[in-house]
């Protein structure tokens, strides 16, 4: 891929699909394998978002193609490791995309709050 202006480059990806955003969030605090991502998302969304294998891996493939995540050759502590599983980690571009998406969502939330659609405090 030819290097472009990083910001406009990432903006073109917005809005991110919810699955993609969730995967980025999952990987934001560390490397995980596929099942780890599924569990983390289920936990954070109180099981409202369930990822089936097909959906997860199609999304992972897209994200790999878009250079938002990459496969990791690093392994967590050996006792936690399942060597047959691939681990993924977020790339710089993935971080920028997640930030941009979060900012977009925050803007929308701010708008909603301004129109009194959201009562809770920020």
């Amino acid at each position, binding site marked *: 891929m030819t290097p472009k202006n990083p910001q406009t480059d990432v903006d073109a990806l917005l809005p991110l699909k919810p699955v993609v955003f969730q995967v980025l969030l999952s990987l934001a605090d560390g490397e995980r394998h596929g099942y780890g991502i599924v569990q983390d998302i289920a936990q954070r969304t109180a099981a409202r978002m369930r990822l089936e294998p*097909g959906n997860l891996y199609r999304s992972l493939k*897209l994200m790999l193609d878009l250079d938002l995540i990459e496969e990791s050759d690093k392994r967590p502590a050996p006792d936690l490791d399942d060597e047959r599983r691939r681990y993924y980690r977020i790339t710089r571009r993935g971080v920028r995309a997640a930030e941009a998406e979060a900012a977009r969502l925050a803007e929308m939330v701010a708008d909603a709050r301004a129109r009194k659609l959201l009562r809770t405090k920020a």
Partner: protein
Amino acid sequence: MGRDRLPDRCYRALLKLYPRAFRARFGDDMVELFRDRRRRARGVRARLTLWTAVAVDAAWQAIAVRREARAAGRAMKRETGRAMWARSLATDARDAWRTLVRRPGLSLVAVLTLGLGLAVGISSFALVHAVLLAPLPFHDPEKVVVLNARDDRTGAGDLASPAEVRAWGEHGSSFDAVAGYAYRPVVVTPGGREALSRAQAAVVTAGYFDVLPVATLHGRLLGRGDEAAGAEPVAVVAHRFWRDRFAGDPAIVGRRIRIDRSPVTVVGILPPAFADISDVTGWNRAVDLWIPARAGTPAADGRKVFWGAAARLRPGVSVADARTDMDAVAARLAASSADFRDRGVRIMTAYDYSFIHVAGTLWSLLAAGGLVLLVGGLNVANLLLVRALAGERALALRAALGAGRWRLARRVVLEGVLLGLAAGAVGTLLAAWSGRLVALLDPAQIPRLAGVGLSPSVLAFALASAVAAGVVCGLVPAARVARRDPADSLRPGARGTAGAPSRALRGFATVQVAAAMVLLVATVLFVTGIRRLADVGVGFPIEGVVLARLDLGLLLDASPETRAREARALREQAAGLPGVRAAALWGPGLPGNSVDTVRLFAAAGPAGVMVTAHHVSAGALGALAIPIVRGRDVEAADRDGAAPVAVVSETVARELWPGQDPIGRVIRLEAGGTPIAVIGVAGDVNHHRRFDGQARLADLYLPIDQRPVASPYLLAIGPDDATVLAGLVREMVARHLAYLPPPSTTTLDAVIDGLKGVRDLEVGTSVLSAFALAALALALVGIHGVLSVWVADRRREIGVRLALGATAGGVLRMVLGIAARLGLAGATLGGLAAFWLTRVLSGHLFGAGAADARMLAVAAALVVAVIAVAGVAPAVRAARTDPIETLRAD
């Protein structure tokens, strides 16, 4: 973990919905994830939910993944420009590499055959490069020219007299310096008291080191002062000579040594890189010392002295300018003195002169090398074509799926280039090794052979020719792939059932056979050339004649009387050796090889005729079986003090006294000189080193006792083994002249063979026959390959034929028939090419004539036999085809 139980297998089956690449990449992880999910789903209901979810997920996502993959493909296609091209090139190169590695046997054959061809091509180039293309080892080499006298009546080149060389230097305005030189074997006593040893000296005029400037390692060069009459005798020595004879001692400068018994002071040592003019003119004299042509010495002013000459052009003067200038000089000189009448000057650059005698041989060698390369290259083209045809369905499929034809063709070419590079590496190694072989052959007369090697230019040539060979080999199959309509190849049973291998394959095979045939004819031509030269003689038997040069000038008492007495004594002793039929003295040249040209004046005519003079002992003509047709031979009574006599050849008698009796006529060797009576007429024989029937056989035989020669040859003629006799003669002379170094002995037929160029032809024959063998072997591999592929392709058809009642013998004959037709077509084509080529080239290759029908028939028979051998294995394989097996196979 690894248990692949039923649910896992079911899920794996579901994954089949995804594209293969996706499945390969993520399949295992997806199964793992599924397994985790399943482990948590307890109870029928949970399981049902799970299965429904994953089934819907698989179906839905599979469609999405496929859609995205297609979109990505289209995006890839849109991505144009160099990046895309480069990436696809890399992919293709990787693909090509994989194709080659997948069939290592075939690739190895291709690499080896092309490698062999390239090796021949590279070594031919290395040789031609070193001899013809590399700059001469001189300072400013393009300014160095070689001067020769020219006989204006015949146009023939000639050595010059010292007077001529001096006149050219004085009157010519085109040169910075003109130098004369002559080579002389000498006997050296390094420290004054040690044993004598032989060395090669060059007698040079003062301008020599202006023509070939060099800085000495120690001491000084020869200067103008060294040439003056009465100057102290000095010498400059070669680096190798200094190292070997003086142990590299710099203190030798200023010390006295003896050359031919006379004291000479060494004044300088040349650097190892210095090249004498003879090192590039093909004389290969390996000069040990250079001594000045001192005024008043025989070497400088003798009547029978002839010089080679070289000059350095003045800056800005071209060779053409110099020729114009020297033509005018020659005309003025001719008008001023009878000595210069009918004498012109021939000027050649040292570069042209360096290979004038060998250029034809070298270019022929290069052409022959090119033919071997062609045969090897065609093998690779064949292989690529076969592979391209075999892979045609796959390629056509790719074409149908949108890969451009150009792209497909490019892949085939890339395969060729990869093969070419590998073969280039093999070829370079082989060439490096064979370079040593060429040196072993030691072709005489080829200058600068030591420079042959893998220089950067040769390596560059190797790389370029390897890539070029690869590209060319790939182009034909590539063109075929590009031309082919994919629909044809995809039709079922598209592998046709036509009677013979494809036209391209047959064409390649035919050209291979033809090239091998041309080389074979050339080899046969050289062999017959050698045989014919053996038949062309000097006109008298030369077998069993042993020669020893007698250095009588080195005797302590070198008076003419002593020399004559010693020579006579040696002749008598030689005649008494066991197995010797007769012994004789001969000088200054050899029978069959004489250089002593004199002008002979008949009493009647004012102008003389040029003849070759031989100084012979009594009975020498009879001993050599040179017939006396009138009068008598030289006899013992014709000694010093008796009336001067001579025998002339028939040609001389005919030219001077047509239709009259020459016996008793008077001749003189200079106008107004001593009268010499003609006592006999000898039959015409050839002493003149020309074997094309063009020599002018004008010879004069003088009694050696009346006209002594400083260093005559002792001839011992015996029917016995010449090598044994040579040993005896050498021992006898060494014993008799105990204080002189032992003489070098040789045989007359060896000398004459060398003169005829038999040795050169022999070298040419070894090289050519090696090339022809290589080409034949390569053609054999190539044709075997073509037929094997053809048989493999036609297994079904052959099976059907056998099932329908054809006999194994019939199948055998059919395949062998194809081989025979290929062989005949190639032999015919090659025969025509050889016939034409040898007629064009016959003038350039001395001794090798044009091809005749018998030679062509011999070569053709050999070629067809080899091709038949190539057909045997595939034919037998075809005949052994099991019809049932082949019919079931489809």
